[in-house]
């Protein structure tokens, strides 16, 4: 390992401090004995305990998880299909327009997306609730999935699909038996991205949720307006923990498969030489 120069060390420390000090403070105060958020009165886990008793938060968490699961799943299916169509169908008329349009929601302000969806639901007379939340999250998560999947498809060797068809597959079978298993890592990471986006979302959810379908971010936001409570700190700490574990696991898995693949290839080359 190379030694880091002094300047690099300082730059790295500053950068990480900027990113993580707010979160560290939040985590520390979630273990505060005192009910007053800003006054340290000793270590305690009692707020985690009281959080587990708070039915409102538990309900909100359950709503959030269900919405995230369904919307990310639907978004993954639709986004993968859109990416496949855009990459595979070659140059059809208006292709540039379509591919531009699928990325537009990425840069669209959430407020506008939320408002537009709200107007749509009102005009077709759909009552706001879990269903409208799922639809709304599917809409904006889908383009993220399609970005991830289409960048994978761009480097996909087309002759693999042709080989499958040559060996007796219809186009649909070739996709199911060959393309999908190969692009599965991209599809899964698209799903994970959609899932976290749905967990995080506050703005669009506040436009499209109803009284029976308060999500966790909405619940946290509205309770913070009445004052920051140690319970919220505890809840946020748990969310940070879940996200951190997920990200770590995902990167470990992909890193391990990469290392294994490289080792295998090196072994094959050695066997060839021997």
């Amino acid at each position, binding site marked *: 390992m190379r030694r880091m120069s002094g300047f690099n060390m300082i730059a790295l420390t500053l950068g990480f401090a900027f990113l993580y000090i707010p979160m560290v403070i939040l985590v520390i105060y979630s273990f505060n004995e005192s009910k007053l958020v800003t006054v340290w009165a000793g270590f305690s886990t009692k707020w985690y305990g009281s959080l587990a008793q708070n039915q409102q938060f538990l309900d909100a968490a359950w709503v959030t998880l269900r919405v995230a699961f369904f919307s990310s799943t639907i978004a993954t299916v639709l986004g993968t299909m859109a990416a496949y169509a855009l990459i595979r169908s070659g140059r059809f008329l208006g292709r540039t327009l379509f591919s531009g349009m699928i990325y537009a929601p990425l840069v669209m302000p959430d407020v506008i997306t939320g408002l537009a969806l709200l107007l749509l639901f009102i005009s077709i007379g759909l009552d706001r609730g879990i269903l409208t939340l799922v639809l709304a999250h599917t809409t904006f998560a889908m383009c993220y999935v399609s970005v991830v999947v289409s960048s994978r498809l761009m480097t996909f060797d087309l002759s693999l699909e042709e080989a499958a068809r*040559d060996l007796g597959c219809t186009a649909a079978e070739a996709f199911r*038996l060959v393309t999908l298993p190969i692009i599965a890592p991209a599809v899964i990471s698209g799903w994970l991205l959609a899932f976290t986006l749905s967990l995080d979302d506050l703005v669009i959810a506040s436009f499209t949720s109803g009284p029976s379908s308060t999500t966790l971010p909405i619940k946290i936001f509205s309770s913070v307006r009445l004052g920051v409570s140690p319970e919220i700190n505890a809840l946020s700490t748990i969310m940070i923990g879940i996200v951190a574990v997920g990200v770590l696991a995902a990167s470990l898995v992909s890193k391990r498969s990469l290392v294994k693949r490289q080792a295998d290839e090196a072994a094959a080359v050695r066997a*060839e030489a021997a």
Partner: protein
Amino acid sequence: MIRFENVTKRFGSFVAIDNLSLDIYEREFFALLGPSGCGKTTMMRMLAGFENPSEGNIELDGADIVDVPPNKRAVNMMFQSYALFPHLSVHDNIAFGLKREGMAKDKISARVAEMLRLTRLEKFASRKPHQISGGQRQRVALARSLAKAPKLLLLDEPLGALDKKLREETQFELMDIQEKTGTTFVIVTHDQEEAMTVASRVAVMDAGVLKQVATPSQIYENPNSRYVADFIGDVTILEGRARKEGNRYELAWADGQPPIVAQSALEIGPGDTCYYAIRPEKVEIHHDKPEDDNVLQGKVIDIGYLGNISTYHVQLANGQTIRAQNFNTERSTQQAFTWDDTVWVNWTDRCGILLAN
């Protein structure tokens, strides 16, 4: 067995295949040879069913196959990139097509075992494609495309990714396998040595048309045009006007140089421009003036030493270079000819070939 009938293929305004007719016979090892962009890959993709001709018919065993999708054709293809399925083991790659056919399990494993034996891959059946070497991958691709016992096997530059030594070994393996299975092979390649080695007949293509279809030796010794003569092997081509003298032609080709005499069955009118192609291995090189039908004097300006043979570039007084090849039969590092030597090159009237175009 395969018949292309007036096939034309256009991509937009680009004509990839231009009104081409061709017959390929059963159990033949047929090579489509040409530079990149000559349409040879398009021909192959039309046989596999990935492209449809814009005009004309393609028949397989007497039946028109233009509207038959690739998965319904008794044709299999070995891809240039091998296109092995990375998520399946060697065994499952080979079994893939058989499973799609709905073959019984025990029959599949018997057939896969047979293919593994044929390609000497028994030890690697459970490996994934990235766990084996390039040469082994090539054999897996071959086994997979042969597993369904197709009537016709298409090979798209099958040896392009292998290094020279492995490529030569594999060429002979391919010929062996073709003989053992009795399948008709059509190979696409831009490597003329490869085409000459493996194929029983070669089609030389250029810009969407067939220039010549013949056995390798006919193509080499009796090319029908300058293009074919130049594309296959080494050749010196001279331009001139021919005059018939008895059963031979005399070709006046440069001022101050004696005419070249050549035997030819070609009918060339007096005064017509024609071409004369002479291959370097048919040209002898001497220090003293020899007796022969064609004798020219020049100076050695370049020597290509390849170990077994040496190629001498001999420049004549008028600036034209003639290439002559000598086998290095004596084991000596001292070459008989060196730079700036004045030498004589000679060959008989049967060695070169007269071409009308």
